[in-house]
């Protein structure tokens, strides 16, 4: 995929050699510290920004989660586990957590099933394969804000395309974004549309890696389409599938932009998700301590999910490895 042929490299070395001919030859000095000073110099821009915007924040928000502080109004006070206790006692927090889980576990099966199907069909002899791949991937690259604005129009109860197409196949119109039950479903469908292209590409790579002769051998044994899919494709795709599942979970749990623009967490909080909750408490109510505690709860969930998935993935990979 990176097309650096030996010829090109050689050419560049020659070029480089000519360029370097200008410099006087120097003997390089090596000491015990190796290239420590150069390394510090090379790493310093990244290290400075990282310390300020990643390392410090991670530690500080953990500290903040035990504080009560509104940021603009004076000093913070230590409140122990109060933020966490208040959160676990809050009905809204549990409903937000439930919404997030609903979104995540609603999106993932649809997303994975759909992307695997598309990747599988595109893996065959299809006319216009490249164009199709481009079209399926296009929703991934556009801004979530614009995508959500477009979908608000598609979901319009009176003039929207979604209700129009539903009407053609015989369904009654739905007030998608104002009905608490329908709104989450609407969000899930849009989320799948926006992200399945990523998984399609990953599945395509996974399918590409399955040796063709497995299928040929199965055909000789008289295996049909479904048997081949079930006994060869699915097991051999297992590592890819689990990897995609981890990724999708982690990103679905952090959904924000499309929620903010499509439903603003409504109606009646039916689509309020974790990051929205954190955002609201931090930048609307300025409860920095409480918001940090909520962020850490989300962090913990994601961390556990990742560990579980990684462990499960390892077992699967080994059991299919032999």
């Amino acid at each position: 995929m990176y097309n650096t042929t030996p010829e090109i490299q050689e050419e560049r070395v020659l070029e480089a050699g000519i360029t370097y001919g200008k410099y006087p030859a120097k003997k390089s000095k090596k000491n015990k510290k190796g290239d420590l000073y150069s390394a510090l110099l090379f790493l310093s821009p990244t290290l400075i920004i990282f310390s300020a915007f990643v390392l410090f924040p991670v530690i500080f928000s953990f500290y903040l989660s035990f504080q009560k502080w509104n940021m603009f109004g004076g000093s913070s006070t230590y409140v122990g586990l109060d933020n966490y206790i208040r959160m676990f006692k809050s009905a809204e927090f549990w409903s937000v957590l439930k919404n997030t889980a609903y979104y995540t576990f609603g999106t993932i099966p649809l997303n994975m099933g759909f992307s695997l199907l598309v990747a599988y069909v595109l893996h065959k002899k299809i006319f216009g394969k490249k164009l199709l791949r481009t079209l399926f991937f296009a929703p991934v690259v556009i801004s979530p804000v614009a995508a959500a604005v477009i979908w608000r129009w598609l979901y319009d109860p009176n003039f929207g395309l979604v209700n129009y197409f539903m009407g053609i196949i015989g369904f009654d119109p739905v007030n998608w974004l104002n009905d608490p039950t329908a709104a989450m479903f609407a969000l899930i469908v849009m989320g799948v549309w926006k992200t399945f292209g990523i998984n399609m590409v990953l599945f395509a790579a996974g399918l590409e890696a399955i040796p063709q002769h497995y299928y040929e051998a199965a055909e000789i044994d008289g295996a049909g389409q479904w048997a081949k899919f079930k006994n060869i494709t699915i097991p051999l795709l297992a590592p890819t599938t689990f990897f995609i599942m981890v990724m999708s979970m982690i990103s679905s749990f952090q959904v924000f932009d499309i929620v903010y623009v499509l439903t603003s967490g409504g109606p009646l909080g039916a689509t309020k998700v974790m990051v929205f909750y954190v955002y609201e408490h931090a930048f609307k109510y300025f409860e920095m301590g409480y918001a940090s505690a909520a962020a850490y709860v989300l962090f913990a969930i994601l961390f556990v999910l990742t560990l579980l998935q990684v462990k499960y993935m390892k077992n699967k990979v080994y059991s299919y490895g032999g």
Partner: protein
Amino acid sequence: MAKKSTIAKSISEHIFIYILAFFTIAPFIWMILTSVKDMGEIYVYPPKWLPDQFHFDNYAKVFEAAPFGRYYLNSIFVAVFVTVGQLITCSMAAYAFARLKFPGRNILFFIFLGTMMIPYNVTMIPSFMVLYWLGWVDSYQALIVPGLASAFGVFLLRQFFLTIPKELEEAAVMDGASKFTILRKIIVPLSKPALATLAIFTFMGVFNDFIWALIVINSESMRTVQLGLAIFRDRYLTQWDLLMAGSVTAVLPILVVFFFAQKYFIKGITLSGLKE
């Protein structure tokens, strides 16, 4: 007989996939068509696909209704600045990890990899505070500086740099070239595909970013396209002609780049998946 059924199957597969593709891009088509209709043609049922007359003046109206021109300048300026900055900082750091020997290198790299697992919303509150303490809220610095480093970028480039044979640098080392010169004159020219992937991926991420702009920007003149569009949506709730024209302007630059540099997009997005 067998051949006939294969053809029939192939045809049905084609029909299936093209229908799916149609539904995938229907929102785009609908956005573009709505953006050139007048309100009378928008509020009809059943929906009317093509307008009688193309109202391109909707675009002019959007730029009058809100300073989208200014939003654009802000977005492009920030995205270009962050992209160029990240290419520089990441290739320097990646070079240190790939080629230089220093105590603690592996531990430091491991910490770097670990930070890729930290979700954005954990760091966002204190990051905002850092900007507040620096007096940078509502400024270009707020949009740019936190983006100038990227663990993903460092990781991507380091992996690529490791595949470059060391012999290529030996001539330059013998000539006494500095490490910085080696990076600039040998490593960087050989790493164009990896740099292009990082550049395109970063540009897209920054141009499409919403939550960070939402947090750090207050004044209208500092808004990015995405923030501007979100606020525009609140004000013109059902003015679908203007909202769709605004959306077209917000997705157009990325779509154009995407059609010309597809493989880098796909590469960047699949690789960024690996970071998690």
